[in-house]
Every structure is written in C-alpha cells, then in structure tokens.
C-alpha cells in the first residue's frame, strides 16, 4: 500500500542505520538532518517496516511524525469502519430524496394572473398521482399537455422539474371582451348622485365635465355621433365617468342605563319546613321591588328533615346612571358604520373605492346619543339606463 510516512529517528550513527535500511531494500524520498543524531525521513510503508525492524533489533527509538497518502486514508477508514456504510446510506437517502417531488409551485402569468386559482390545478395533479412525496415524473411536458387538455380555463400550462420542485406555470384564458352592438343605441346615465371627478367617452358625446354635480339618472354620455354635416345617428355610448359620492349611516343609543341599587331597607321572614309543609315563625314585610335571599338551617339531624328557612328581602330601586362614554361611542361607531356600509353596498355600483371615512357625534339630546358615519367613495357612475333603473 503506497503512502508517504515521515519518521524521526534518533541514534548515535544514523548513517549506519541508513546503510542497513538501504541494503534491506528501503527507499527514502527525502532525508533531512534535524540535529547531529536525528534524521527526519520520508519513506513508504515498506521502508517504515524495515526501519521498525532495525529499530527493534538495535533498540533505536523512532517515531512517526506524519502519515499521508493512501496509507493515511486506509488508516482513517480502518478507524472509522462504519463510515463507508454511513456514506452509502447517505448516498442512497439522497438518491431517494432527490428522485421525488417535494414541492409543487403553481404560478400564473399573463393578463389574467390575478384571477388564477391554483386549487383546480392541484386537484388535477392529485388525480394524476402527482403530489409532494411522489416520484418525479419522467415526462413533465406530457403532464403540462394533460393539464391543458383537462381544463379549458388555461390557454397554456407548462410544467418544469427543478430538482425536488415541480414548477407549474399557467396562463389563464383571457375572457372574450364584452361586445357592444354599435347599432344598438343607448345612453349612459348616472347610477347615483355625486360630483364628477373625471369623465371619458370612448364613443358617444360626453355631457358632463369634471366638477359637475350629477343626480341619479342624469345623462352622462349621449349615444349619438355625427353621421353627416347636419345629421347624427344613434350609437351605443361607451365611457367612464368617475364621480365622488357619500353614503351616511346613523346610529342612536340611550345616553343612560338603568342600574338596580339597594335602598338599605330589608325584612326577614322565617318558616319551619318539614318535607313540603311550612309553618310560619316570623312574618316579614315585602317591598315593591326587592331581592330575596334564602338560607336553610337543618335542626332535626340527619334522619329528620326539619329545617328553619330564613328569607331576607332587600328593597331595590332602579336608578338611571350615565353610560360609559367610551363604550357608548365605540358601540355607536360600530352601528353607524354598519348602517353606512349597508347603504353603500345597496346603492352604489360595483367597483367603487372608499376614499375617506369619518364619524360625527352629536351631544345627547332627549336621553339619546347619536353618531353619524360617512363614507366618501369614488365610483364609475356611467351605466346604461336600464341598469340605472335596476339600481346600478
């Protein structure tokens, strides 16, 4: 077995030891003199064996300074006999791990990426027995084609395997744009009251400009265009008129609340009870509004159910006190916001955005405290006349 071994030998005449070792067939790649009686030798295992034999024969001490090469590796492997098995196990585990899919990522690209839903694709992959932990598919392109064929919602589905990751890229199918019959004439009117923020007409004649106040049902874009120098013809009006509008909600709650308080007056009555029979002992007065406390005292022992039942009546009175202002305001805010939200979703067209929200509280009057919630929103108010009639 080859390998470089560095030895340190100390003796009276190192030259003589060298000659004997060379005569025995030892080969030294390097010999250096450390001091007058010490040599540092680089040799192979055979040379080490020869020197060891000479050292034992002539009682010459020598030490191994360093081992290198294959013999060092062999020594290391011998010391770590379980290492090959461990490495083999690790390699097998790595091969098993890397041969499977552990992560499935589904991404959507294209114009419809925002409305892409990964659940159907995951379900389809699951039906194809492709799930985290399953063996890595050999033909990922075929899977993409199968997914594309199985679902008509995607214009393209690509599948790539990146290590233990399966990347599915899908482009949702772009829905066909809404088709207007140009010849089906129509006007666009306001779906709600508000102030025009911006107005744009793609076809037809714009009847409002930013800053105008419009009422519900007011004409915003007239569906006509010039057909000749003198005449017009009706067309389908298209465009967008953004208006700013407000929705209010109100809530009112009593500013006071009733609280039951004791007046300090009380009365006591006692009865002697045997089974369901009661014999009055002391009769106490009763009040118009009272709270009763009953205590029973067993006097007959364990086997004779005789008790003295003592009833204490404490007079109470309902008193109106001011409600906790912070709690009251919080409840009023919630109720008012809910009311405004109901109006908002009931009246305004879809696609509105809330710009600002604020609350106005009023001082308590008539024992009631009121709160008003206001939502300022911006929305496209231009709708066809029939939609405006239906409520936007």
């Amino acid at each position, binding site marked *: 077995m080859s390998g470089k071994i560095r030895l340190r030998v100390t003796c009276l005449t190192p*030259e003589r030891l*060298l000659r004997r070792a060379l005569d025995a067939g030892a080969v030294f*790649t390097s010999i250096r*003199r450390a001091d007058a009686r010490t040599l540092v030798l680089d040799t192979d295992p055979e040379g080490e064996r020869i020197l060891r034999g000479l050292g034992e024969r002539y009682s010459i001490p020598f030490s191994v300074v360093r081992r290198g090469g294959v013999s060092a590796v062999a020594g290391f492997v011998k010391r770590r006999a379980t290492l090959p098995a461990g490495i083999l196990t690790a390699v097998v585990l790595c091969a098993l791990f890397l041969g499977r899919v552990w992560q499935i990522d589904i991404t959507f690209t294209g114009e419809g990426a925002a409305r892409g839903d990964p659940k159907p694709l995951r379900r389809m992959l699951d039906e194809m027995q492709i799930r985290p932990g399953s063996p890595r598919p050999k033909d990922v392109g075929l899977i993409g084609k199968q997914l594309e064929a199985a679902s008509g919602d995607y214009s393209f589905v690509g599948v790539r395997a990146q290590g233990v990751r399966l990347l599915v890229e899908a482009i949702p199918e772009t829905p066909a744009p809404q088709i207007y019959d140009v010849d089906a004439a129509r006007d666009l009117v306001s779906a709600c009251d508000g102030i025009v923020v911006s107005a744009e007409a793609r076809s037809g004649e714009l009847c409002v400009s930013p800053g105008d106040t419009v009422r519900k049902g007011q004409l915003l874009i007239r569906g006509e265009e010039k057909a000749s120098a003198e005449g017009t013809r009706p067309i389908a009006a298209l465009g967008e008129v953004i208006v700013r509008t407000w929705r209010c909600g109100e809530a009112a709650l009593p500013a006071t609340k009733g609280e039951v308080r004791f007046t300090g007056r009380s009365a006591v009555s006692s009865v002697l009870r045997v089974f369901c029979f009661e014999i009055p002992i002391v009769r106490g007065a009763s009040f118009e509004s009272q709270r009763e406390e009953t205590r029973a005292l067993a006097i007959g022992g364990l086997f004779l159910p005789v008790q003295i039942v003592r009833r204490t009546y404490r007079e109470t009175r309902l008193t109106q006190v001011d409600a906790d202002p912070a709690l009251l305001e919080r409840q009023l805010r919630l109720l008012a916001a809910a009311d405004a939200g109901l109006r908002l979703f009931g009246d305004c067209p879809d696609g509105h955005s809330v710009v600002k929200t604020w609350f106005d509280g009023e001082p308590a009057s008539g024992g009631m405290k009121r709160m008003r919630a206001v939502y300022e929103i911006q929305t496209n108010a231009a709708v066809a006349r029939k939609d405006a009639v239906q409520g936007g």
Partner: protein
Amino acid sequence: MSALPIFRRRAHAARRSLPAMDWMDDVTGRCARATAIGNRRLLVENYTAIIAFSDERIRLDTGGGALCVTGRDLSLREVRSGSLIVRGEIHRVDLPCEGGGAPDER
C-alpha cells in the same frame, strides 16, 4: 580472500595503458557517476554507502573512494540503493581520486 582486488588492479593497469578503454567502466557501471544540474541538484549513481551526512557536507562511499559534496542546506532525496539526489546549495563536489586512492574515513 577473493581474486577481485587482483582483477581490479589488472583492469586499472589495462585502462592506464589503453586510454581508449575508458568507456568500459561506464558500460559496466562500476564507477560512480555524478550528474550536476545547476548548483541545486546533484544526482549520484553507483554509490555504495553514506559515510557522513549533515546540512553542509555529505560524504558518499563510491567503492573507489569518497565523493564529498559541500554546500548549505543539503538534504538527500530519492535515496535508494545505488542512487540518490543531493538537494541544496551545492558549493563544491570532490570526486574520488583515480585508482581508489582516497581512504575510507569511517
């Protein structure tokens, strides 16, 4: 006692009488050969023993005398029976005298 010294003496006498026969020793490999490569490396072949070895001086027995290498930081490389390489800053190489005149100083 063997007849080798007698043979050697005869061969030496023949070589002295016939200088053209010098190549015989080279072919038979009986004489020491020293090949210097610059002043950092010296290949010595056909040596028989290492007589003395230090950082500044190395003496090798060649059978026909002692080959002495003087220098600084000297070390031996690729040492095997019959050949070795002297590495270091070599200042001087003293070759054995013709006819094996140099005594062995062991």
